[in-house]
């Protein structure tokens, strides 16, 4: 069972990053292949079909549905203004006419002689999508969007909330084990992406929101604080649509746990640079993890494989324990026994022997470690 482990999150110092920027519906692409774009460059736009309103004209006029065509003032596809007559009855010798007025501006989509309903469609809503990150347009998806590519740093988090944001990276802690509290955040962090250490407190998150920080990247966060933030207990990890001033990305998990050294050192090295982040997470079909992208200028020397090399666990692999009792600890694999072993819980599982950074040795289920991949 070569792949009985959790592939780790990607932490790449320099790699090729491609992002598909796609409209929800077909529309117009407004950039060309080869164009240089910045994160806020609009790359495509379209119009979402307007809301639909159903008006039962026949019942409002007290007519059988099949009589609808004789009273309709508009036909399929006609534009209509709010308050304009949709249908008028003949009345009695031209008097006592009844009418039905349009409740909205838009167009007539359909008239049914079966149900007596008229369907009106409100005007479309324009929407635009931007490039999200600085880079180059390398592919045009006709009528749908583009693929933007850049060379840069790419870091995946384990969980996040809040959508896409951009800002300058500001490291406010001394090391990956230091918690991020309100005292470390100032007005100067407006629009910035704040890098914390092991944990962000509720007050810290509030302060970041108050000063208008674009995002926080930190090791952990407490679940009761997430509940306060969202106003409900998060049942299923599908996030990204929250309307938050400050997006939050956790690199390790829930609770207080030091950010992995590699991740922290890399973010520290990118301090002052512009980053694009996205807290959207989906841990279900089509896993989406939150991410931090820093576009880098210059040559492509030292480039790492964009997809990461997918290798199995080996003796010497760097791993992180992802469940109690060693949650968060980093170590190297020293043994990969083939046979199943019994845990304290009496579960019979495939295991590995690990030596943690502090020299402690432990036997862990393979399912409870993730590889630290570069």
């Amino acid at each position, binding site marked *: *069972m*070569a*792949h*009985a482990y*959790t*592939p780790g999150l990607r932490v790449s110092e320099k790699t090729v990053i491609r992002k598909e920027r796609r409209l929800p519906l077909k529309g117009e692409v407004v950039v060309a292949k080869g164009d240089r774009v910045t994160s806020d460059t609009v790359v495509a736009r379209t119009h979402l*079909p307007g*809301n*639909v*309103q*159903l008006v039962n004209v026949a019942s409002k006029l007290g007519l059988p*549905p099949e009589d609808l065509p004789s009273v309709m003032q508009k036909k399929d596809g006609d534009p209509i203004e709010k308050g304009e007559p949709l249908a008028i009855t003949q009345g009695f010798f031209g008097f006592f006419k009844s009418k039905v007025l349009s409740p909205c501006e838009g167009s007539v*989509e*359909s008239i*049914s002689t*079966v*149900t007596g*309903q008229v*369907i009106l*469609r409100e005007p479309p809503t324009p929407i635009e999508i931007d490039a999200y990150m600085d880079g180059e347009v390398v592919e045009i998806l006709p009528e749908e969007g583009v693929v933007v590519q850049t060379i840069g740093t790419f870091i995946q988090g*384990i*969980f996040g909330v809040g959508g896409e944001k951009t800002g300058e990276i500001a490291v406010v802690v001394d090391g990956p084990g230091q918690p991020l509290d309100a005292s470390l955040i100032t007005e100067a962090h407006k629009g910035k992406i704040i890098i914390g250490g092991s944990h962000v407190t509720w007050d810290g998150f509030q302060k970041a929101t108050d000063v208008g920080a674009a995002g926080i990247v930190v090791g952990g966060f*407490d*679940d*009761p604080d*997430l509940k306060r933030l969202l106003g*409900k*207990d*998060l*049942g*299923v*990890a599908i996030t990204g649509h929250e309307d938050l001033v400050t997006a939050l990305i956790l690199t390790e*998990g*829930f*609770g207080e746990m030091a950010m992995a050294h590699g991740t922290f050192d890399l973010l520290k090295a990118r301090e002052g640079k512009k980053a694009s982040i996205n807290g959207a*997470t989906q*841990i*279900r*079909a*089509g*896993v989406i993890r939150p991410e931090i992208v820093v576009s880098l200028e210059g040559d492509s020397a030292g480039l790492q494989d964009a*997809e*990461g090399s*997918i290798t199995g666990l080996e003796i010497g692999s760097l791993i992180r324990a*992802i*469940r*109690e*009792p060693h*949650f968060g600890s980093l170590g190297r694999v020293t043994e990969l026994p083939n046979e199943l072993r019994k*845990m*304290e*819980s*009496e*579960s*019979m*599982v495939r295991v590995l022997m690990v030596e943690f950074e502090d020299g402690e040795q432990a036997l*862990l*289920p393979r*399912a*409870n470690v993730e590889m630290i991949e570069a």
Partner: protein
Amino acid sequence: MSENGKVKAIVATDCGSTTTKAILIKLVDGEYRLIVRGEAPTTVEAPFEDVTRGVLNAIREVEELSGHEILDGEDIIHPNDGMRGVDLYLSTSSAGGGLQMMVAGVVKSMTAESAERAALGAGSIVMDVLASNDGRLPHEQIERIRHLRPDMILLSGGIDGGTITHVVELGQIISAADPKARLGAEYHLPVIYAGNKDAKGEVAKLLESKTSLYQVDNLRPVLERENLGPARDKIHDLFMEHVMAQAPGYSKLMGWTDAPIMPTPGAVGSMIEAIAERQGIEVLGVDIGGATTDVFSVFKKTFNRTVSANLGMSYSVSNVLAEAGIENVMRWVPFKLPELSVRNRIKNKMIRPTTVPQSLDDLKLEQAIAREALRLAFKQHKDFAVSLKGVQQERTISEAFSQSASGETLVNMMDLDLLVGSGGVLSHAPRRQQAAMMLIDGFLPEGITRLAVDSIFMMPQLGVLAEVHQQSATEVFDKDCLIHLGTLVAPVGVGQEGKPCIKFETTLPDGTAVAEDLPFGEMKVYPLGVGETATVKVTPARGFDAGAGPGKPFESTLSGGVVGLIVDTRGRPFVLPTDENERVRKLDKWAAAFDAYPAS
């Protein structure tokens, strides 16, 4: 096929949302037996994005463990020549979120409910039920359809020959929403119409150009009868053609299998139905997975399935906490743990769903969550598994006095004969006693009930196998799949702690005579092994009913299992002590009666 056309070796996989499981079945000494089982993480997601990787890994493990060569590179060797290859390869799947549907019907409690039953019976997750009287305005319904992006829509409404207006209105709403398929933007969303036959033409006019419309027989042709078969079959066909074909790697997998890939819950459901039919009993089954929990029942010969889409042990574990509340989860935990720690642990399981409990405390916490997931899923099932609503009933005088109405739940725990558990947390519990306790606490069976678990979680594969090779599926099911845990005796009634509840008399196979007055509030397990039976005499105290009526004694022959004969005098309805120390003491005492955990 092998020589003389007989199937001698079968490999079947189930691609779950977390794990892909493979089993090898071979004909040994004239009977079909399970040889080994292998598993590997499912690979629908990045970086692999090809379900066949996980399938090959799982089959490779089967090869390693059995020594039976199945793969030649990435090809399955057909047919079996004794030492190499298989005669049949089959698969089920719930990966990639399974089959997600939206259903619509005119009246929420009638045609819409029948449509929901058809969709659930076919193995789908029902994302929403649209009805003319669901309380939403048309624009809200339209917005909802657009937002949800289901894999397909089932539209029903009206009895044959009745008015067509309302079902056509629903058609208009779907048409106005111009729905898009969840997977594959290039494809039209499949819509199945199974309503009033007189509206077929109007519905076609509305939906033919915007969707892939399929019309089948009305699923409620008359109020008194459902006809779910045609809609269910069409859902299965479209699941293969539209949904599976879009998921990463499935087209390749479809080319490998010797029969269509079935949605996992559909396959488990057909197994449960088969047990009830073969043995002529009332059966309740549960499959608790990582993302969803399915409950299946056959009561009064009526099959029902519900899926609790967001109750599960990994992806949905946090939702169990959200729905049950932390107090309900913690009431099953026999030690003190700060709320912050519990919450963070559960969230960490949600974001890293493939981890397993290593410590004993972690296992107990996970099994506490499982009890609540089972309880909530079963509650949903009871509310859904009801007799047809809107049906005029002829009543006898006594029925008129008992005020029984149409739409009453069919689930009667006193009538239940067999409770079967499946899914990782039950099938892989380190001790079978733990599975028995979770089933008892989650479902609270009443009277006499046999308990069983799916040994290694292979009902899905056997379900699909039964479609093409009934004999092997039945033989493996009887001999290798079901692990009989034993029989539970649970009197209904409430009493005072320590006061008499029942007198229990029997003679065990080793000759030990048992005659015990069991007080209220206890759990007792007597040894009675697999294949053994014992005649018991149960005499309930006043106010308690163990199956024959309040206070009425009876004799019955009960079968044993790997756990034994279980007597639960904790009462129904069941209430846990509110005092913290007392609660922990009780939980430990009951677990000790089962020898459920190692001494810590």
